[in-house]
């Protein structure tokens, strides 16, 4: 397994275990690499559109579907709370973990709360909708806005 893959797997497993995005040092401990090497991997993973980094080109903002910062999309799985980057990613967290969970979010217009139970086969019956303003061709131009 190459170093980029080792870093990716270690990063995602650390998030899955705790709900928090680990530091580059913590990931480095898991893969026996320096934090500088881990950050180089982050940049290559960003180029493959597997991570979104902050403007410093080193700090993880998004390891989709997980968010490194609190958002309005909160997902609880097996007692661990995660933040999702968007509505799509809110369903992506139970999908990634292959575990049932509960999504807490809201209607962006009315602010009505959404509490959605998601099983291994998908969400419970729900008439709520997903809306995306940005065309697919432009999603990664500014993933935070998207």
């Amino acid at each position, binding site marked *: *397994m190459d170093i980029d*893959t080792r870093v*990716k*797997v270690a990063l*995602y*497993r650390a998030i*899955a275990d705790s709900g928090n995005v680990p530091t580059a040092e913590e990931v480095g401990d898991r893969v026996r690499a320096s934090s500088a090497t881990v950050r180089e991997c982050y940049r290559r993973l960003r*180029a*493959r*559109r*597997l991570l979104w980094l902050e403007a410093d080109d080193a700090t993880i903002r998004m390891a*989709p*579907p997980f968010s490194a910062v609190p958002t309005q999309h909160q997902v609880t799985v097996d007692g661990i709370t995660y933040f999702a*980057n*968007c*509505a*799509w*990613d*809110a*369903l*992506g*967290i*139970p*999908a*990634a*973990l*292959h575990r049932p969970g509960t999504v807490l*979010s*809201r*209607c*962006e*217009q*009315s602010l*009505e709360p*959404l509490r*959605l139970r*998601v099983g291994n086969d*998908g*969400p419970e019956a*729900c*008439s*709520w*909708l*997903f*809306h*995306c*303003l940005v*065309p*697919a*061709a*432009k*999603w*990664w*131009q500014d993933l935070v806005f*998207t």
Partner: protein
Amino acid sequence: MLFFRSEERIAEWCKSRGLDPRPVVRMDQLWHLAVTWYGSRLEAESRRPAPGEMRGIFEGLGLEGDFWDPTTDTFG
């Protein structure tokens, strides 16, 4: 990428911002996208779908047209 209670709430939200509403996605369609994108994300061999694959995935869900076509993406 946001949740809304109904198409009416989407229309209100867009109108208040002077924006045109985009195609909506049902929750069952969104689950399919979530599983396709992230079902193997914690595994070593996982990868993001390529643009051509994405278009096929969207078309399979009835999400067609320029809005869902990523193949003009020149980012990076």
